[in-house]
């Protein structure tokens, strides 16, 4: 024992010396340059993925990896979020009212286990995600399909009641609940991704949550890359899939995803030349990075809304005037300039900017005088008698800073006292969904580029409403939008619905997200995208 300890210690010293020498002699060639020459992307990816099964995961880091490994019917366009690019489907068409869609699958799409990608694989996959016993959190994305909701709710066990039909090996027909012209864009989301039935059946079957098909040994995909290695908390590596139908377009030879949770560590790694891309940037460093490396710091719009939920079942927040007073009495511009500093846009409405064809609402503007007046009308002149209330946040320095700014501005403008209390993430989620809060810090990122992904949240009975607010007129407008025959009528109904939301204000819009990250100057084909999806097959380095 002692001997081996001494040995390992001498070895350590030797290695330390050698390591130092080698590093000193190698002249500091950066890992990023070496990797770029080999066509390998080094990608800071936030956290360790919880899994790689597209039907069971919900997070952004998981999405980054899965979208390199699996391809859905429709793929992401390299520059425009609204254009559906051909994926496994080489063509698609709908009937006149966009309720029945037919997808023609390409002949050369194959799985990494050699199976051709067939229409039946999609039917199998969608049945899998909708099976209640699998417990998929993203299954409601598929409710757009006829009968999907009642199948998922367990009302029937007969999947033929759901509007998915493989007409033949290469033709898939999907019948929807209502007219949905943007259905192809929804299909880009990983909840619609296929899984290989043979692989799933071999490792526990369709409904096994702990099925081992998506581990590194067993993974079967059909995307531009295939899974090469997965070292927990270190690195996931994918390499070029030469059998991919569009391998000619793919330029990278591989991607290494590094799960780095600590933004400072990630930044240090980037600066020491070990990453081409980071997932984020430490908030405090944004101003200094803006000065020192403006060509590498990226600040891009992101389709997300940061807001406070208001518990409308509690006094005094049951009074719309109180909610309106709160909503207009903090200076969003000041908040994004001085506190968040990441180029966020002050939110004057709930649906964020960046959705073509949808006019951003400008209804909620900073107006402290109006705030005072409304609060007085609600029975609290100059804040007198306003009960002490609290902002619930999940534990995070960033959320706390914002809450403190809100607290100070409400005190100054309305003379009311609002406290802040933080809870751990899981506890906070429980408090929010059981309406055990006054005001609760919230955020929502769009799943697809359409206002529906934001506005359907606040319909009565929506599981994510979490405010206690219901409005029959609002519900009617949302379902009117769902059934609208034209996109114009749909957008109009949604704008009217948002108007109601912003009049009643069960939510206080604060800002619209941006994505702030570092990007190596050699990287090309990585364009700003509001959903932060960058199809990897178009990404390359200037050197190769």
């Amino acid at each position, binding site marked *: 024992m002692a001997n081996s300890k001494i040995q390992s210690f001498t070895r350590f010293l030797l290695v330390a010396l050698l390591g*130092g020498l080698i590093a000193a002699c190698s002249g500091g060639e950066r890992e990023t340059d070496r990797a770029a020459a080999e066509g390998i992307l080094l990608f800071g990816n936030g956290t360790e993925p919880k899994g*790689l099964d597209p039907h069971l995961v919900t997070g952004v880091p998981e999405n980054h990896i899965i979208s390199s490994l699996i391809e859905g019917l429709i793929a992401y366009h390299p520059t425009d979020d609204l254009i559906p690019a051909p994926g496994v489907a080489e063509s698609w068409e709908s009937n006149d009212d966009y309720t029945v869609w037919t997808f023609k699958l390409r002949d050369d799409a194959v799985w990494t286990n050699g199976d051709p990608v067939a229409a039946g694989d999609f039917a199998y996959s969608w049945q899998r995600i909708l099976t*209640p016993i699998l417990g998929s959190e993203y299954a409601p994305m598929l409710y757009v399909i006829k009968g999907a909701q009642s199948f998922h*709710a367990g009302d029937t066990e007969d999947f033929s009641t759901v509007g998915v039909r493989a007409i033949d090996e290469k033709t898939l027909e999907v019948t929807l609940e209502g007219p949905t012209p943007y259905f192809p864009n929804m299909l880009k989301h990983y909840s619609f991704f296929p899984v290989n039935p043979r692989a799933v059946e071999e490792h526990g079957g369709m409904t096994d949550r702990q*099925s081992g098909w998506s581990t590194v040994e067993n993974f079967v995909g059909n995307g531009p890359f295939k899974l090469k290695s997965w070292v927990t908390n*270190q690195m996931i590596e994918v390499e070029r899939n030469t059998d991919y139908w569009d391998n000619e377009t793919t330029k990278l030879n591989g991607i290494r995803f590094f799960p780095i949770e600590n933004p400072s560590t990630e930044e240090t*790694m980037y600066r020491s030349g070990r990453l081409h891309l980071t997932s984020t940037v430490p908030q405090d460093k944004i101003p200094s990075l803006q000065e020192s490396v403006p060509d590498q710091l990226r600040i891009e719009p992101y389709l997300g809304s940061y807001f406070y939920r208001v518990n409308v079942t509690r006094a005094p927040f049951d009074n719309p005037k109180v909610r309106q007073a709160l909503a207009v009495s903090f200076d969003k511009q000041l908040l994004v300039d001085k506190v968040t500093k990441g180029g966020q846009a002050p939110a004057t409405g709930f649906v964020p900017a960046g959705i073509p064809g949808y006019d951003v609402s400008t209804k909620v503007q900073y107006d402290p005088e109006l705030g005072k007046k409304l609060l007085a009308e609600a029975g609290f002149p100059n804040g007198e008698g306003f009960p002490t209330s609290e902002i619930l946040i999940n534990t995070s320095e960033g959320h706390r800073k914002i809450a403190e700014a809100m607290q100070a501005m409400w005190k100054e403008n309305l003379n009311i006292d609002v406290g802040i209390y933080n809870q751990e993430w899981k506890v906070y*989620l429980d408090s929010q969904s059981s309406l055990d809060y006054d005001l609760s810090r919230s955020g929502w990122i769009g799943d697809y580029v359409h206002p529906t992904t934001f506005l359907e949240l606040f319909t009565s009975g929506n599981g994510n409403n979490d405010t206690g607010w219901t409005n029959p007129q609002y519900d009617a407008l949302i379902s009117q939008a769902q059934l609208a025959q034209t996109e114009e009528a749909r957008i109009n109904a949604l704008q009217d619905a948002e108007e109601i939301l912003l009049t009643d204000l069960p939510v206080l819009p604060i800002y619209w997200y941006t994505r702030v990250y570092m990007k190596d100057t050699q990287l090309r084909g990585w364009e700003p995208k509001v959903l932060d999806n960058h199809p990897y097959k178009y990404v390359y380095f200037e050197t190769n």
Partner: protein
Amino acid sequence: MLKFVAGRLLQGILVLLAIYAVTFFLVAATPGSPFSSERAIRPEILAQIEAFYGYDKPVFERFMTSLGNALSGEFGPSAVYANRSVTDIIAESFPVSLKLGALSLLLAMALGIPAGIIAAVKRNTWLDYVPMSAAMVGICLPTFVMGPMLALVFGIILKLLPVAGWFGPEFWILPAATLGLVYAAYFARLTRGGMLEMLNQDWVRTARAKGVKETTIIWRHCLKGGLMPAVTFLGPALAGIISGSFVVETIFQVPGLGQWFVRGALNRDDFLILGLTVLFATLIVIMNLLVDIVQVALNPRLKYE
């Protein structure tokens, strides 16, 4: 001695059982659940997931099942990470933590103990003042300051060492140094104190009067006793290095246990929390037992009782 070891082992098992029970019920009583999600899950779906992991049973029944599994060495699946059992996670990350811990501890002893001896022998000279002041600074500087500082100097400015990751020996140096330096400081101060106590004993004066060489006095007569405080500190040091490595693991992206421990708690990944708690507790129990044995071996005034 056998009787002593057997007795202590039995005690250890009781301690572990108690820790297991307390952890289990504390975790069960904590609000939040591993299945809470930002996206609402329909109640009937949630019920399916809960049933899958056995959460639909009464707490006491769950405790008995979980204890039974734990006794057979199986802590169950992670409730958050797909396809991974707690045993897998431990098997993957424990060797990393052990390596990091061993390297840091060796570094700490290799630096701290000689520095302490020299400081005691050359008391009140610069050989005493300089290392002891450095040790004071080392004790006061937390790892979350030391780590980024070392990364900045050796990684970014000098470009000598990688700043994060665990891909090979050159990656081990900065985290082991960060963790080791703090403990080196403790070892230095403890050894100095222990040695000084020995050097001031009457029999040392007698030995000197008899003309015994100074080196013999230090090496043969004082060292054994002088190291006692440092040896006693080994147990807590190892526990501290393993449980306190979370910060270092985060700064340097080391895939060890510490990260899982914190993540397990944040995710409310009950099985993982239990598994890791039991592991840490076992380590501490074993380390304390070993330290006791070594202490008796070094100190003839102690007996196995």
